[in-house]
């Protein structure tokens, strides 16, 4: 059972309903504006994607470079002088 207050609320909503109806078609120039904005957004996304891809490739190249240098230095027995002197004093075999 609806109260008087509920009925008043329903009546007010029914009277105001036409003002809540949306627009049927976009205003002049709206479609062009949105399409241009979408195109611009896609262009920006493509730029960021390219930048991101390049950054990843550069990071990978740097990691590979560092790994190679570390490997080569380790192989050539290029020890820190302090470590080398300790090794000599203690007569430790360092390969």
């Amino acid at each position, binding site marked *: 059972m609806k109260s008087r207050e509920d009925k008043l609320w329903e009546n007010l909503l*029914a009277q105001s309903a036409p*003002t809540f109806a949306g627009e049927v078609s976009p205003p002049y120039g709206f*479609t062009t504006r949105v399409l241009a904005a979408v195109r611009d*957004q896609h262009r920006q996304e493509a730029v960021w994607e390219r930048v991101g891809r390049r950054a990843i490739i550069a990071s990978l190249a740097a990691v590979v470079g560092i790994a190679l240098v570390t490997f080569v230095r380790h192989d050539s027995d290029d020890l820190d002088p302090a470590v080398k002197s300790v090794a000599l004093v203690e007569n430790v075999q360092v390969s």
Partner: protein
Amino acid sequence: MDTPDDHALLVERWRAGDESAGGKLIELLFPIISRIVRLHLPRRDDESDLVQEILMKTFSRLHQFQGTAPLSHWVSRIALTTCLDRLRAQKARPEIRWSDLTPPEAELFDTTWLEGQTPSAEKAIAARDLVERMLAVLPPQDRSLILMVDLEGRSLEEISQLTGWSLSKVKMRLFRIRGHLRKLIQNWGERQ
């Protein structure tokens, strides 16, 4: 171009790079988004800007559209969640007293109270203002909820799906909102 298959075809054409399909999609989706935005527009937000923002969101996510649900449902969900996210940041206004109402609003309240519905085009604006004043005291998401039920006629299950709220949460909120509105109308009826 009104069946779900036609909509899916438009999406496919847009994905394939057909610009004219984009224009048709905007014209097709505009009334759907416009209706939702007008109903759930946050204060201080511009309607046209918000419709554009929702369309931009829609286009940036079109690659995710599977076509399992109608495009209109998919877009409605994006529009509603965008509005609800914006509304979340808003706060309810303080309680409005009878003395805060403008003379046309007070007159409309009295005539509606005493005579019931008096449909007239001139009164629609005053009725809208009065409804907005009554809803302004509610938390913004509650405002959206009561309008979805009482104005759009959406079912509680549908609202639960659209908002992601549980059915019991929807029912509980609705119960609380109705109590709040009844009390407000009673107070105005007693001129408090």
